């Protein structure tokens, strides 16, 4: 299987499309009324222009490409990882490099890894774990199914899709499986599926990490290894087990399978007839079709946090590759059609008793929890501190709790709440839905 993952040099043309205007530094909308808010977690924390939004990261890329900056400088190596790659800056940009901003940031990281400098030591542990255990949490493979025990005990075991056919593969993801604080997510997801009578199964101990974490920190080889393995598994499940749908409750896995895997030469062919869908979207569809109805009620005032990976990372950019409309490489337009902004909100509002109140920064202008792009692993304190800022924003709405659809955000935002002494608790959407079905 061939992979078309661009090098920084291949992206140089786009690096030079950035004017350094700094529009990327703040979220802004004319309105009326006008909306303004900080959008860059790294900019908020570190402040220097180089750390700030895409303007700063493009400066780093320029410095690498013109030979001024070298990864030999450990401070510079660290600096290219001080970014959550959340895409908040990307939403603001209007120039031709807009669609490629995360690619340029990750392109620098890939170059650092290729040259033997990157990623950072904590990331190296993560990648090594991926090699040794097929997950970034250094968890033995047998532990991947720990969350399934209550189902087995209750006489409702989760189907092993390696052995039995099923229409739906529930791709759990490593965070839900190994991170104890996030294990409620797969538990709630599976519980909902069982209540709805969905024919689903899991890969169990044979599930392999989606590779998102490796890709985010620039280790393309580690990513390709697991991604290739997963794509082959998907092909096999489709052909031999009748799988038609891959559902995941993990925003990172979803983004990886939808977007990063599309860089594989065989992607179209393998995924033909296989739908990849996030649990929130899947349940929303069932609700719209009248197949999901609520039996209970929750007296709860909540706010909703848009994860980057189910939000703006799923923007579809239209680029004039051949120059038929404007010029070769011109950024033409963006569609938010695939971003999961409305589905979770509509489901929340539909739950009897739940009141949804919005934060100021939502949807494309959502403020990153601070955990993405390898930051939670590389800079745990900063990640939690940033999550505290997001929790504080949530608290300002008067909501009791925050809801999201990403186990990674879930974990980090809970850490943020703890750090600032907030009683606000993070719930995955599935955890609420499971209570009222």
């Amino acid at each position, binding site marked *: 299987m061939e992979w078309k993952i661009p090098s920084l040099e291949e992206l140089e*043309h786009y690096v030079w499309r950035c004017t*350094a*205007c*700094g*529009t990327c530094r703040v979220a*802004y909308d004319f309105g009326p009324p006008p909306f303004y808010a900080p959008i860059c977690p790294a900019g908020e924390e570190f402040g*220097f*222009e*180089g750390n700030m939004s895409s303007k700063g990261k493009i400066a780093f890329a320029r410095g690498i490409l013109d030979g001024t900056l070298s990864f030999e400088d450990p401070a510079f190596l660290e600096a290219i990882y001080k970014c959550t790659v959340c895409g908040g800056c990307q939403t603001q940009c209007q120039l*031709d490099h807009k669609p490629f901003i995360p690619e340029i940031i990750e392109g620098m990281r890939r170059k650092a890894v290729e040259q033997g400098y990157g990623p950072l030591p904590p990331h190296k542990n993560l990648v090594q774990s991926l090699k040794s255990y097929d997950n970034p949490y250094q968890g033995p493979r047998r532990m991947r199914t720990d969350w399934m025990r209550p189902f087995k005990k209750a006489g409702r075991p989760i189907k092993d899709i390696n052995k039995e056919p099923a229409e739906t593969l529930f791709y759990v993801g490593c965070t839900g499986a190994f991170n104890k604080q996030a294990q409620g997510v797969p538990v709630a997801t599976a519980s909902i599926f069982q209540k709805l009578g969905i024919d689903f199964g899991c890969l169990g101990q044979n599930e392999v990490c989606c590779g998102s974490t490796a890709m985010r920190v620039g280790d393309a080889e580690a990513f390709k290894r697991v991604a290739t393995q997963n794509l082959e598994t998907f092909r096999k499940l489709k052909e031999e087990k009748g799988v038609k749908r891959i559902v995941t409750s993990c925003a990172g896995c979803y983004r990886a399978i939808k977007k990063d895997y599309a860089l594989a030469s065989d992607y179209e062919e393998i995924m033909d007839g296989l739908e990849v869908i996030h649990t929130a979207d899947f349940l929303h569809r069932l609700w719209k079709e009248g197949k999901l109805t609520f039996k209970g009620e929750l007296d709860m005032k909540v706010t909703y946090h848009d994860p980057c990976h189910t939000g703006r990372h799923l923007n579809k950019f239209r680029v004039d590759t051949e120059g038929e409309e404007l010029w070769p490489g011109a950024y033409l337009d963006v569609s938010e059609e695939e971003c999961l902004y409305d589905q979770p909100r509509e489901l929340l509002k539909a739950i009897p008793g739940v009141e949804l109140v919005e934060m100021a920064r939502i949807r494309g202008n959502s403020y990153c929890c601070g955990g993405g792009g390898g930051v939670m692993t590389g800079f745990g304190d900063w990640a939690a501190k940033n999550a505290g800022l997001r929790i504080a924003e949530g608290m300002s709405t008067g909501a009791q709790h925050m809801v999201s659809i990403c186990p990674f955000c879930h974990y980090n935002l809970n850490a943020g709440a703890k750090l600032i002494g907030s009683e606000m608790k993070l719930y995955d959407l599935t955890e609420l839905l499971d209570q009222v079905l």
Partner: protein
Amino acid sequence: MGTATAKKTDPVLAALVDIVGEGNATDALHIRYAYSYDLSFVEPKLPDYVVMASTVEQIQEILKLANREKIPVVPYTAGTNIGGLTIPERGGILLDLKRMNKIIEIDTQDLVAIIEPGVSHAQLAAELAKHNLRFGWPVGPPSASVSSCAISHGIGGMNARYGLQSQEITSMEVVLPTGELVRVGSCAIQPKAWHSTLPLPKLDGLFKGWLGTTGIVTKLAVNVHPAPPILKIFTVSCDTVEDMVSYMFNLSNYEICDDLTAVSWWLSQVPIPYPYRPKPDDAPEWNSYATTYSWTDKEREAREEIWQKVVEEEQARGSSVKVTHYPEEALRGRTQLPSQVVGSTKNYCKMAGAGISWPGTFTPAKKWAPVYTRWKKILIEHNLSPAVRMSMYRGVHYGMLRAMIPFNKQSKEETENARRAIIECLKIDLDEGGIPYKPPVDFAREINARAHPGYLMLLKRVKAMLDPNDIMNPGKLGI
């Protein structure tokens, strides 16, 4: 950031770290590199240190240190000017003020906003809107600094009504290059009064238009204005620059517009064509928008009546002026301010890539047509679009004349081509009595070459009085 190791060997860095704290001062190359260039053609140059201050006291300490050690200091807020104004000519300390971003007060009775230098247009716009107030937002990035734009004589969307943003300044607090703290305007007499510079001697002039070479403005008060609810934009086109100037002369006499601007066809495109391409034969060469705000429909109708009268008068004398539809995105970009369309330079650079600079001037309106005609020839000869803007200023026949010149910054040849064309254009304007604003050093030299010797003497004397060791953004004035 390299501070820990450098601190041991570099006493200047160690002193800076002592003032602002670890993590806020660095000599790390990658951090300095990001401050070494901007949008313009100005050659990149590195500062030696980058420091982020968050209090006035820290700024005072930094300047005392710099003055003692004779180290240049370059004040920086957002770096969004297009004249290389924050690119250090002689290295030194790049003093980033973005963390001083408090809106200290919005006095809705005096109609004054008191802000710190890091407050952005987007930030102030959002806050003022809560009070139904407004300010003359420029066609710049929403993240750009209100303070820096104002003290550099920036223009805005209420230019025709209230003048330059610098004329909206009512009081200032400034740290001098020696580290001393001063105040000018009413706040100098009564600390809580920030309402005006008059009738005191206008000492604010010591810090406006000096390109950050005389001190660091740490608090700034500007007038803000009530926002009438009814916006009406009058748009016309003309086939010739002469017809457009005549229309603008006529309309400006009535003082009904907040902004009265005309742009050449090339500037009304989003983005500016790069390289030059001829306009379609059937497209008018000039488009104008005139923004008016009214409190009532009757007031709007009265403004419209005046505008129609002007159009009819112009047409009666044989002008090609026509009521027309202004290109939609360009109009939105220029009238819905602050704007990401113009702020992101989408309308300027999207086609060219990375570079944008200008001959940006204030020029008597009677010279606009002849200067434009010569600029057009020069720019086309350099394969650049004559993307020119003319804006009338506060009811008099004087105003902004500028050409926005995007270029492909990846190419040194194309950058130099743009620089040469811009300098050539600038010389023509200077010789016709125009004055460039926010000028790069290349422009400053041309200005000084034409200046009255007494002006230069005074300029040098004032500069030396305020900045005896020439540490503040040295080299930028070309003296």
